[in-house]
């Protein structure tokens, strides 16, 4: 594939003010032969090694998780993102997303263990480690000889991650730090060989990262396994450090750089977490379709009931849309990394900056996909009725396992606020021109709307026009809010949350439309009938959400004429000329699922 130049790919957040051509986005249909083989291989692994042991995963079989992780290591799944010089496979970002996606579908226990190890447990060293640190630790982590865990959270420091009390004190001879403190909610703690630990040196403003080897002789001890709602076989413990000696050469990056490391590791973690919610949705949907086809009530397979069709259609749609947006962003990141590599950046520098550029999209995806798997598994239970509530069917565990995704890697509240906050910051720095477009939207509000009937005969013509208008809604709401509150906007959290919902819906809906448009152009519209329906259905729902959220936001800060004008603008920007018949769309989508008896998109 030819490399893209800097100008051709969108910057992070720029999707809001720039139109994207469908040819310029990457879709799952663009996987090359090697990627398809990787996907099949991971799927086969899950079907053979994980699914048959589902019950053991629900019974807190922590050793099984460790065993599966070792097997994943043997097959090279743990090293896909690691550069080849450290015994990894040095694959592109899309391939690493794909492995994370498909390995995570069967149980949240493996999804979490895999994410914590390959993401936050390994990435801080590959991205920030010195050559010696990388040589010493990364090959072991990439092959699964060792496992990693990430110790940031403390009893008093959760969302406020930089407020930790764990201390690192330099020894008198200057050769090591002595780390003391209590870490909480540490995934993989029970079997990790190496911890990324964040601690404060003296009264530094920011924490510092360290690589700490597990050694019970060195003041490291553990709490009991936490009793959790879900991810029952993912090890989660407290980790106590009591004067744990860590050689000075095990400091990660510089003193006080820990918060930056923590945040950047989370950017990658967030988009990977989004991926980790995708195959779970596909599997839940497939299970629901199969059950609905078999379960007969009133002498009819329940799949034939409109109420069930509605659910199946919405479940499949959220999976399809999540895929569309996740792989779109993943390829943007990969292209950005390649551009940096070509311009001479080191691998770690390129990767860091490449991902950081799309931190907004990473937050958007984390929130959207974690909420989608929650809804999807919730409806999955409903399709199963009473059986869905039973631990003997896969729905119950899927639902419990889904819940954690809204909490870790930054809660969805924090990620929602971050997405808008980062965008506003980018605009202030001039990295994305929001002010110009926001101004033209403001002007448009006071101008007379055109009454021309546009030509909507081409596929998605009206939908794409709608996306443009929805972007205007965001610019109108966020633009006026920034004007009104300036830096104090941060304190208006409910407004920020509403704005971020608009942002999220725009990105997700646009991604689905672009994917389907691209595929319709190359494979023919006829082959994409249901995908077209899913894109239209999602957009319709997005318009409804955006309407409600924007209204709530506008009313919270505007008054009098301004209020009236903005509400009129909102009406104009969310108006369909031709309403899609969503009942028909859902039926069409569901009928295809029912005929195929699986998730087939």
């Amino acid at each position, binding site marked *: 594939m030819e490399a893209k130049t800097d100008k051709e790919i969108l910057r992070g957040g720029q999707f809001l003010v720039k139109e994207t051509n469908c040819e310029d986005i990457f879709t799952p249909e663009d996987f090359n*032969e*090697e990627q398809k*083989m*990787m996907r*099949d*291989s991971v799927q086969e692994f899950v079907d*053979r090694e994980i699914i048959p042991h589902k019950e053991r995963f629900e019974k807190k079989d922590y050793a099984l998780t460790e065993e599966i992780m070792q097997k994943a290591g043997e097959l090279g799944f743990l090293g896909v993102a690691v550069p080849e010089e450290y015994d990894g496979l040095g*694959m592109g970002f899309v391939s690493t997303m794909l492995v994370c996606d498909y390995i995570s579908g069967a149980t949240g226990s493996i999804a979490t263990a895999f994410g914590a190890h390959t993401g936050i447990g390994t990435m801080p060293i590959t991205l920030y480690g010195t050559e010696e640190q990388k040589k010493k630790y990364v090959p072991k982590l990439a092959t699964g000889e060792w496992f990693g865990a990430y110790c940031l959270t403390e009893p008093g420091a959760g969302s406020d991650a930089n407020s930790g009390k764990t201390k690192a004190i330099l020894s008198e001879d200057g050769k090591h730090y002595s780390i003391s403190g209590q870490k909480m909610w540490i995934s993989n703690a029970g079997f990790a060989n190496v911890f990324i630990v964040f601690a404060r040196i003296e009264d530094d403003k920011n924490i510092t990262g360290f690589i700490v080897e597990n050694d019970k002789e060195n003041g490291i001890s553990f709490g009991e396994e936490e009793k959790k709602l879900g991810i029952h076989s993912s090890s989660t413990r407290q980790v106590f450090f009591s004067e744990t000696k860590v050689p000075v050469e095990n400091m990660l990056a510089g003193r006080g750089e820990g918060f930056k490391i923590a945040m950047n590791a989370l950017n990658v973690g967030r988009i990977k977490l989004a991926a980790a919610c995708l195959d779970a949705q596909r599997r839940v949907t497939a299970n629901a379709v199969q059950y609905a086809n078999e379960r007969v009530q009133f002498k009819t397979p329940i799949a034939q009931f409109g109420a069930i069709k509605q659910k199946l259609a919405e479940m499949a749609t959220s999976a399809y849309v999540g895929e569309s947006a996740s792989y779109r962003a993943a390829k943007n990141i990969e292209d950005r990394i390649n551009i940096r590599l070509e311009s001479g950046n080191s691998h770690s520098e390129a990767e860091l900056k490449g991902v950081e550029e799309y931190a907004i999209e990473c937050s958007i995806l984390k929130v959207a996909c974690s909420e989608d798997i929650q809804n999807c598994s919730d409806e999955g239970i409903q399709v199963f009725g009473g059986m869905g509530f039973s631990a003997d069917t896969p729905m119950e565990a899927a639902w419990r396992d889904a819940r954690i995704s809204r909490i870790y890697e930054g809660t969805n509240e924090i990620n929602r606020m971050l997405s808008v906050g980062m965008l506003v910051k980018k605009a202030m720095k001039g990295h994305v021109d929001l002010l110009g477009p926001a101004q033209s939207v403001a002007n448009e509000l006071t101008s007379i709307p055109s009454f021309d009937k546009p030509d909507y005969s081409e596929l998605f013509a009206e939908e794409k026009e709608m996306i443009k208008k929805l972007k205007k809604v965001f610019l109108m709401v966020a633009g006026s809010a920034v004007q009104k509150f300036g830096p104090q906007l941060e304190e208006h959290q409910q407004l920020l949350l509403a704005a971020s919902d608009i942002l999220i819906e725009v990105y997700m809906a646009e991604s689905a439309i672009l994917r389907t448009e691209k595929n319709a152009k190359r494979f023919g519209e006829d082959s994409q009938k249901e995908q077209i329906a899913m894109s239209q259905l999602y957009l319709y729902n997005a318009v409804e959400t955006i309407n409600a959220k924007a209204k709530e936001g506008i009313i919270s800060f505007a008054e009098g004429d301004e209020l009236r004008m903005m509400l009129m603008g909102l009406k104009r920007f969310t108006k369909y000329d031709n309403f899609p018949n969503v009942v028909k769309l859902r039926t069409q989508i569901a009928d295809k699922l029912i005929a195929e008896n699986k998730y087939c998109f």
Partner: protein
Amino acid sequence: MKILVCISHVPDTTSKINFTEGDSKFDTNGVQFVINPNDEFGLTRAMWFKEKQGASVDIINVGGPETEPTLRKALAIGADTAIRINTIPTDGFQVAKELAKVAGEGNYDLIICGRESIDYNGGMVPGLLAGMLKANFINTCIGLEVEGVKATAIREIDGGKETLTASLPLVIGGQKGIVEESDLKIPNMRGIMQARKKPLNVVEPSGAEAATKAVKFEKPAPKGDVKLIDPENLDQLIDLLHNEAKVI
């Protein structure tokens, strides 16, 4: 030891079966293709010979370009070289003849075929191939060892097993048992990356003609509804078995 594994590219067992062209052709639309399971057992055994006895393993397929993902998978599992004879397989005779030409030129010690492929279940290729190559032949193998030029194979026979020896060159028709399902290899990431760099040689067919032609396919008649009969009502059961099912 030079091993050749014959790989056929067949629909996944869960595929929906439909026919086109007046029921004379299998409809490949939307069908997922995989390595023929009997061939995969053989390939896995070949990998064992490669690892333990330093054998070289080539794979061969008669088929169009659409079979290449299946061949790449076999390469990712560990085969050294793939050969694709570029023609659409039509019957066992044509396939065996095409295979025999390339296999003969390659001087293989051991040729592993599946007992049958699960698409059309012809089961003729291994025997025909052995005949054409004038090699020894053992069918329905559920175990295979090779020492020097002597092979020991275990065959499944009705109600038991038979152990035979034969000298190389040898063609076998393998099946489950030659390795177990749990021995099947999932391609690892490194194997997948290496597969891209391994040779996949496309050779033109010799033009062997099929001896038979498929005229029509039929699916089994759909199963009728199950009739439940009250255990008290034996007369009705007998009546139905006699007059409707006509089995007694």
